[in-house]
């Protein structure tokens, strides 16, 4: 792991965050300092160690596939930035380059 090689503008693109040039510079320096700190993990012998995703041994919790009431549609749509009747209204996605 090499520290300080973070390409903030590229990572921001992946994270869908618009950053100003000043932010790219500031965050770059701050994240570089953090990466320097986390580089100490290289000293830990982890080759034969399993990864822990979470500490409580529990996986694939299932419930019966039964229809039950969900949140009220009007209440949920009430939080939408823009709506069209019973739908969320979102910017056009198909037929654009983005």
């Amino acid at each position, binding site marked *: 792991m090499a520290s300080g090689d973070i390409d903030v503008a590229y990572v921001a693109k992946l*994270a869908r965050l618009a950053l100003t040039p000043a932010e790219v510079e500031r965050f770059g320096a701050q994240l570089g300092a953090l990466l320097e*700190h986390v580089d100490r993990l*290289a000293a830990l012998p982890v080759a034969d160690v399993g*990864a822990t995703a979470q500490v409580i041994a*529990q996986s694939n919790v299932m419930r019966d596939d039964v229809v039950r009431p969900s949140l*009220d549609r009007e209440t949920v749509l009430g939080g939408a930035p823009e709506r069209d009747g019973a739908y969320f209204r979102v910017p056009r996605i198909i037929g654009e380059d983005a």
Partner: protein
Amino acid sequence: MSDATAVEIARSVNAGESSAAKRARAANDRIAERDGVIGAYLSVTSELARTHAARVDARIAAGERLPLAGVPLAIKDNMCVTGTRTTCASKILADWIAPYTATAVQRLLDAGAIPLGKTNLDEFAMGSSCENSALGKTANPWDLGRVPGGSSGGSVAAVAGGEATVSLGSDTGGSIREPAAFCGVVGFKPTYGRVSRYGLIAFASSLDQIGPIATTVADAALVYDVMAGHDPMDATSVDRPVELASPGLREDLRGVRIGIVREFALTELDPAVRAVYERAYADLEKLGAELVEVALPTAEYGIATYYLIAPAECSSNLARFDGMRYGLRVEGRDVGATYEATRAAGFGDEVKRRILIGTYALSSGYYDAYYVRAQKARTLIAGDFAKAFASCDAIACPAAATPAFAFAAKTDPVSMYLMDYYTIPMSLAGLPSLSVPCGYVTPAGGTSPMPLGLELSAPLFAERSLLGIAHAYERGTRHAEARSIPDLPRTAVAR
């Protein structure tokens, strides 16, 4: 503080000596009188409190007995309560109204608690001072020029300032324990999975846990007992019986072994702070505990591990804030630009930093070197605790290396991250852990004595034992009763 505890309030309301309505009114008056100065609340839900109190009084009148009858409760504003603004102290959710109620909150309300309002936090619970809130400034009631700690700063300040009897916080890497230490109250993070996270807006899903904040260990145990337990709405909620903590509260520590961590040398602390912790350890012994040295050789890697895992999970969880279905939307020339502009305008600097570091740690070419390595380090850290608990019932250490610091004292992010040095390892291991008041120091340049907290941590699901030990320490030392917060100015300070 002379205010009644939750245990006392519930007893008197159940006995008909007081009423929930009376308690709700008094709490609301207290908020009106003090919150202009403290700034603990982002929203005060007086109408909800009134209607709820009336319902509680009707149930009592009908012969029901409720464990939290009439107990005034403050709720961290990253927990959903139907019909209330739930903001995470972020511009991106500044006007969002929750369409449902978090399970933990619902259980407390069903048990008779009165919802006073929603409290301030570091944006999306990311921070250790509450200064990362985009929506308000919360002061430490012990010294208004100092931070309350974070991220549950509003919830601890509300309890410390007498603006709520108990409150809920959430703890991902120390966000209940560090502020509880800074404000001289009890803050308790249960075992991961013991309290439902349903309705807690996610920051780092493998670490987040809801817990109680109170003026006494007995009150924290009472709240814990009501809200702990399995919830089918949270797939990480653990389906095993809850061992109630309240019946396990004890008065001495005979037969208890307390681990003192070799790697957490007190000699690294300021001498006045060090003296408080040396006395705390001696007091544990005086109460009958046997002190044993334990080793946590990988604990020093906690912060490095945490600041890969938590941001990685944060970057994934916060991807949902894209301006499409709820919250802020800032229009761009196309959908991609709308996402980017919305998130740029909606998130503050700390949230952006964590999204960036998490995205980086999960990105192609860095995933194994950073994220997977951190997950393996997490295994080692949890393993160290398991070994340590073979020789002790609980581990004692400082909750934080210093008392609460002044506003704007920590400008560089890594120095802020280091505030959680003593709390993060327990979070990574999922352990139940709490902070209980253990003394006071007057910081250099400070005007008044500031509280310190002793952190006690126990094996997974050993909540009953842990709260019992903390109760014996609290009763044997009575630090919280020794001092009260200074008189507050009558007029609101400018924020």
